Structure formats: structure tokens, C-alpha cells
């Protein structure tokens, strides 16, 4: 399943990543409790978690790759595939749905020329659905990177995308 040699050789996790993971270990009774945090740390640095990174992180936590993958594939905020520089999450839960989330999504798909779940060609954005973002009084809602965007209209979308 591995790609041929074009892929750059994996050099292991960075010292920074390893330090951050080790720092978390002190907060829990056992190492494997850090599994989710470790994946999130890798993701913070690299945008997503490749097989190589997952295997390396598993090594630090005394877990097998399969054990860590079992955790990784449960949680939707762990990306096991490359994503764009900025991930746009559009809320598809009930209030947003009622108040026009579909329109926002269609607009985003058109503007980015992607289907839901895909990365834009320039690698700038990935569009993903997300469950209720806890801002239903300002539906529809987007999360752009780490930032919550409220009362979203087509105009806001254009503003976000800088177009």
C-alpha cells in the first residue's frame, strides 16, 4: 500500500513534537492515555497524521500501530489523510440545517470547486461537515481553521475565501 520512492523519507517525529508528547504524559496515569493528544500534536505540526507519524507516535506511547490506529479512526478530528492548509467545517446539525447550511455548503463547494470532504486543488482548503458547533443562536455557522464564524451568508463565505 506504500507509495513508491518519490515520497520524501520519513525522518521521525521532530524533537518539538516528541517533547510536547512527553510533556502530556505527566498528566495521566498511563502513557497510552496520551494517544489522542499525541495524534493532535502531530496534526498541529503537520496538518494531518501520516502512517509514518502514527507508527512513530505509537512507539513513544508503547502502543502498537494498530492500537493507536484503533483510537485514531474513532475520532473525527484526527485526519488520517492530507487536508488543506485551512480546514473549513460547516455545521450540518439541526438549526444550521434549518437556517440554510445547505446553501452555504453549496456555495463553498462551488467556490472551492470541491465536493464535501475534498481538498481544494491549490491545497488551501478542505471542506468537512461537522456536528453542531454550539452557536445555534447564530446559525448557520462555520469553523474556519480555529475560528468560529457566525451568521454566515454567501457574502461571509466570499470574504473568508478572500474572493
Amino acid at each position: 500500500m506504500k507509495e513508491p520512492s518519490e515520497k520524501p523519507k520519513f525522518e521521525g517525529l521532530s524533537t518539538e513534537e516528541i517533547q510536547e508528547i512527553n510533556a502530556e504524559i505527566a498528566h495521566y496515569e498511563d502513557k497510552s492515555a496520551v494517544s489522542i493528544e499525541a495524534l493532535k500534536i502531530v496534526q498541529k505540526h503537520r496538518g494531518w497524521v501520516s502512517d509514518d507519524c502514527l507508527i512513530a507516535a505509537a512507539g513513544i506511547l508503547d502502543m502498537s500501530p494498530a492500537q493507536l490506529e484503533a483510537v485514531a479512526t474513532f475520532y473525527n478530528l484526527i485526519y488520517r489523510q492530507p487536508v488543506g492548509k485551512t480546514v473549513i467545517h460547516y455545521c450540518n446539525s439541526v438549526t444550521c440545517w434549518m437556517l440554510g447550511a445547505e446553501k452555504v455548503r453549496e456555495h463553498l463547494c462551488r467556490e472551492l470547486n470541491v465536493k464535501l470532504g475534498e481538498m481544494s486543488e491549490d491545497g488551501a482548503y478542505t471542506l468537512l461537515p461537522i456536528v453542531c458547533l454550539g452557536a445555534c443562536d447564530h446559525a448557520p455557522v462555520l469553523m474556519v481553521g480555529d475560528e468560529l464564524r457566525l451568521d454566515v451568508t454567501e457574502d461571509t463565505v466570499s470574504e473568508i475565501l478572500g474572493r
Partner: protein
Amino acid sequence: MAIIEIDGNHYEAPEGQSLLSVCLSFGLNLPYFCWHPAMGSVGACRQCAIIQYHNAEDKKGRLVMACMTPVADAMRISIDDNQARRFRRENIELLMINHPHDCPVCEEGGECHLQDMTVMSGHTVRRYRGQKRTHANQYLGPFINHEMNRCIACYRCVRFYDDYAGGKDLQVFGMHNNVYFGRFDEGALENEFSGNLVEVCPTGVFTDRTFSARYARKWDLQTAPSICIHCGLGCNTAPGERYGQLRRIVNRYNGDVNGYFLCDRGRFGYDFVNSSERIRKPLLDNRTEITQQAAEQHFRTLFQTAKGVIGIGSPRASLEANFALRALVGEENFFPGFNDTEQTLLSTIFTLLRNGGIHTPSLREVEQADAVLILGEDVTHSAPRLALSLRQSARNAAFELARRMKILPWQDAAVRELKTQTQSPVFIASARATRLDDIATNIFHGSPEDIARLGFVIAHCLDNQAPAPESMSDAEKALATTIAAELKQAKCPLVVSGTSCSSLAVIQAAYNIAKALPSKDKQLTFAVPECNSLGLAIMRGGRLQQAFERINEGLADSVIILENDLYRRAPSQKVDLFLNSAAHVVVIDSLENETAKHAELLLPAATFAESEGTLVNNEVRAQRYFPVYAATEPVHGSWQWLTGAMENPEWHHHDGLTAACADAFPDLAAIEQVAPGADYRFKGSKIPRQPDRYSGRTAMFANINVREPPPPQDLETPFSFSMEGVTAQVPPALLPVIRAPGWNSNQAINQFEEGVEGHLRGGDAGIRLIEASGTLPWFNDIPPAFKAEQGQWRIVLLPHIFGSEELSLHSPPIAERQPGHYALLNPLDAQALGAKNGDQMEISDSTEAPVITLPVQIEKTLPRGLLGLTGVLPKNLQMNNSDHVTLKKVAEETENHPEIYL
């Protein structure tokens, strides 16, 4: 005991047990999936729903999961209630939404728990109209197929593989209705007990790959109760045959021994029976095939002309075959056929088990131990199924904690969620890392001497009467003190040792420790290498070296060798000399091997699958195996070849031979009672080996001859090669096939046990021959500490589940998993030799003659001065534990494969 009411009937049940397990042992039909008798309850599948009433007046009740509900006195429940039935039916309907309905092409068909439960629950009409979710499958190695679409997500596979067997490479991925049970990437399952997935999975996701290659339905297999012959533990198996071919092995429940599980060697090692290397015809001078009559004639003539015949028996052959040989050649001319060191070890072990006064546990008892010390064994590789039991024993502290917190032991998830660290102590002393290290509290790595010394120190810490080495390091002392303290506290401590180190001192140290333990319920067990090692230790006889001398010195000129490749027992020069010096060599064996090549007369022996016999396992339990199918003439059971040459007509039948053997050895007196004899009848018939649905009997050989051949007669056992006969009253321990009305899968075993996970009704198979009594004095022969000598290395042979046993290696799937050949070195030793991983290392014997070149593997857990050897050594090459060798790194350009100089 509590009285509970189930659908108006009253039953007595143990308070606090799970309702599901008691309903099943009452023979009530209550479907389930996620529950497993050995793994307890998690309540995931929701299939075992019943109605529980609040009190006597309550009419409505409420739905509960039987597996999660403890039995309480005066409890009222209903299995039959419509609401419960509807729930169970609809639950199966949901499970089946994505199931492919591919029963006709599924290997599980006909013994599928999902099929059984679907029929039992009454779900017959499909209402779902949507698409099915599909999955990709993975290649999981030579043992196991993967067909994920059949998965019903009961989570049993991972609960067995991870939680129970300590595997790490099979996991569940994804979530919601897209859960996937598999590996991170394709490749062979790493755990040594992966084969149990076949039986643990209630549907056809994990099936036996060796069986699919020559598949037949369960009801079309002819089966007989059997005993695994691939190590000394004697797990009970049920091999299945069709068209004269052995097609698979499944577990046969024995409440004392293997319970529900086998190791992969035992399950997949059977294919040697079908091997093209089988000896199928008598052979003269390794060239000329002769008829059975000619062979018998030749055999008898040899006796008349020989100037002294000796017999070399075999620890992998039955008591009866060995006894027949012994009777034929005379007691003083019989040799059990052990390697000489091993003979010393085994006779010591037998003495300890018999006269040492310390109980040796069954595997079930091993699971009760609350502190374990393993002295010198990598149990997973030397006695695999024992390792699985030891892994369970480590959980006793968690059970104890659970008990204090009022969590019932079968509440599997709840017990496992208790403090992760809570574990009974397990200490391991071995040459290097072992497969049980993940449950070890403390680990010691050392040479056999140092392991023995540690043992003596522990014994001394426990009881200062026990001799201690004159000097010991502080580290040794500290570790021994810790271990002794834990063992001392334990209610039921267990010392495990065995023959792997080839060290008498290790075995004696193990005894000293056990003797020194204060607990009444202490236990001592030994891993022994072969399926009848202890049987032959009981039979006794001269050493192989003495046998050699008899011939070499002209005291005898003929030898009969029974199922024994002497090249695995002694250095090849010695065996060569011996075989060449003998005027006549008769070999009786089933597979070609080096010794067989030297036979003047080679007689084709039946394997365990085509013959009967009694074996004695490591706890001195005698067990009988029976032929699964009749050997094809002129192949015969070894005992038949041997008795054929005798005068005494009583011994021409197996029962007579067993009886004579029992008479000859007081310690074997009970072997006659191990199983009924050939005269067993129920309602006039013997026990049928074929299930009542066995199909095609009249047509099976119609392509050859339209006349239906008469079924072979079995004159030797209580079984018939037929489907006629009643099995309802047969004691479960004798049932070839486990099946009950509505229960076609192996899960039907619930209906044959005294309480779930209990003993079989009417008793488990086998009889314990002896119970330890008396006591023995302290052993005080303490070896000096091992000192690595400059320029010399000591060999440590590293056993392997898929490499150390002779017969299973002839099974291609096992051979595929055998370890590579490596020379293992401590990193510092490797550095000193200028070697890195993969470099070729030339190994020379004490005379400086190079014997083999192997690639180096650096093993940081191996102590300095030792040379670990993995893999199957080339035929002809005899290297023993503790042999001294010298090493030389070979210049780079040498080819990258082992080179033998012999």
C-alpha cells in the same frame, strides 16, 4: 445457591452468576453473540434479552440482558415472553442488515453460530431494502482468512485476541456501522493463538485458511477425539477427515486442560499427515518397495537371525507402541530414545512430580495462581497453551480487587477497567526477552547457571534451610528478595520451569523454591518437550549413549527404531557410527527423515490421525487419542507392526496392549480407565465418527467403483467408521463432534458442561496418574556463576512455536511461519566482534572446526558471552545448549545465507 423461576419452572443456580450462563447450562435456548464462556460478559450485542419481573405480581416486567444480570434468589424471568422474543428477532434482523447472506460459499456454514442464532430467534423475513455496506479484506497470513463483510460486530475477536491472548496487531477501527476488525496493514497475525479466532468468531469472518484449501462441511467430516501431539501439554483436539485426507483441527473442550483454546502449532500443525514425505510403503534398503507380507516376513526373519536386538523407543510415540517395542526386545534392551541430557532432566522431573510432595497443576489450576515465577522457559515457545493460562493467572489480582469492589468477575469490561496496573506478580528468568514479558513484574536475563543460582537464592530467601550459593551479587540478592516476598504472600503461588535450558540445576532450583514456599496451595509445573516425554520417563530404560555402545561394542547387531529421528537426539557422527555399525536397522516411522534413510527395513507407521494410543502429558495425565480415519494399507499403527512380530495373541489388540502396559508399570496402572475399550457399545452400537448428516457416503467413491465399499472396521476402539449409532448417551469426553439440537457450532459445548466453563458432564477426558506425595531433600548442587570467557561463546538454543517441533514443521503453513536462522549476540559482544545486524558470523566448535555461518542479530536482552540460535538448525547439525563455540565475523562478500560445513 439461589432458586430462580424461568418461565414458570424453578431452577437452582449459583448466586451472582450471569443469568445467560446459567440459562445455557440448563439447556435453555437463549441466543447470544458477544458473551463467551471464557471471556465473560460485556453486553454489547443485546441478543440475550429476556424479561425480568420485579416480583411475583409483576406481569409486565422489563427487558434486560441476561449476560449482564446476576442471578439473585427468588428472581423471576422469562425467555419465552413475546416482548423478549420480538426484541431478539428484531435484533438479529439488524445484525443481518449488512450480512452478505453468502452461507453457501462460507466456510462457517453448517457450524455457524450466527446461522444457529438466526434460526433460533425466528428472524426469517428480510425487511431492509437499502444497500449493504461492504468492506475490503486483508491478507492475515497462512492460518486465517478474513471476510469482513460477514462481520456482525460482536467484538469477540478483539476481546479474545487483545484482552485474553495479549495480541496487539488485531484491532477494531472506525465507528458507527463502519467498524472494521483487522490489522494496521496486511500481514500474518502475530499472536500465537490466532487460530482461536476461527472458533471465537460467531460467523465466517475469521476462518481456517488451511481448511478452506480443501473444504468440507462440518457434517461431512469424519472425526474422532484426539490429543495434540505437538508439545507436552496434551491439549484435546477434534481433527476432521474426508476422502482420506486430514483437513483441519478444532478445539475439543477439556475443562482441566485446554478449555476452549488451542495454540496455532496445535491447530495448524496437522498437515504433515497429508505430506508427500509420508512413508506409505515398506521399503527395503531405502530403495525397494515391498509388500506388507514381505515386510512382515522380513521383520520376523530378522529376529530369528539377529545376534541381539535392541529397541529405541520414542517420546513422540504412544505408550502402547513403546511398550510393544519394549516387550518385543526385552526390558533390558529397551531405550526410551531421549537425548541423554534430556533423559536426566525428565527422570528428575518425574521424580519431583511423583515424590516431591508438591502439586502439579492442570492448566485450569494454573489460571488460579496468584503469583508466578517462570524459571528458564520462554513458555509461549516451549509449551504454548500454558502461556495463555499464565496470562490469565496474572489477572487474579484484578479479580480480587473487583471482588472487594463488588464487581462480579464475569463483568469483563468492568474488571479490565479497574486500575490498569493491578496485576498479580509474574516473574520471568530466562536467557532473553520472552513473549510473556508484557505481563512480567520483574525480568531477569542470564545463562542457565545464573538462572539456577537466582532460583537457589530465592529458595534461600524463602527458607534459610535451603542452600544458598556461597557468594551472590547484591543485585541478585535484591531481586531474589523481591521475588521471594511476593511468592511468600501469595495464596496459590506457582513455579514454572522445564527442559528448555537443558539444565538440571534450573529444575532443581525450581523444586527448592516450591519446597521453600509456605503456602499450602503452592504448585510446581514443568514444560516438557514432547507429547509423551513423561510417559517414557515412567517407562524408563537405558540411555541413548548406552544403546550406541551396545551396537558399537558388538553386544547386539540389530536395532529397531520407533518413530524417532536419532539425528535430532545425538551428534551426527555418533548416530552415523551407530547406524553403520548395526547389521540390521529397522525403522518404523511416518515421515521421511535422516534416520529412516539408514533403515534396512522401513515400515510405514500411521500418524496420530490414523492410529490409537495413550499419551502422558506434563502433569502426568494419561489421555487417549483415536484414529480419525483408517490408515491406508500397508500403513499401520507402529504398535501393530511390532505386535505382528509377537507370539502373544492377547497383544494383537490395542486394549490388550494397554492392559499389559498398565500391569507392567504401577504408575501407569490407571491407563486402562482412560477410555472404554473396543467392546464399548451403546444400544448395540459403537460411537459413530460420522455425524448423522454425513452425506454422500454411498457416492463418495462412485467415480472409482459404483459398488459402495464396506466401511473399514475398527476392532481397536469404541468408535465406528460410520454414521450409525446413538450419541445422546455417550459421555461428552468421548464425543467426536460437539453438536446439540439447534446448536451446530462448537458453541454447543455449553450444553455438555457442568455449568458453563465447568468440567464436561461425566468428567473431562484423561486421568491423572499420580499425585505428588512425600518430600525430597533440598538440592544443593549450585553451579558457579557464569563468566563469559574471552573468545568463547555458550550456545543457547531458542525454542520456537513454529520451528522447534519436528512434525508440525512438515505442515507448510507452519513452515511458512518458522523463524529465520540467526546468531543472536549481546550488543557489546557484537561490537567486540566488529559485527552489526546482518553480518555473517562463522561459528566453530570446540575443536575450532567451523560448523555453520549465520547472520548476526543483535539482541540487547541476551547476556554477554551467550550465543542465541534461532530457527531450525540444518539437519545433521547437532548443537546443544551450553556447547562452547568460537566466533569469527566473515568478510563482507560472503553470500547472505547460512552455510553449513558438514
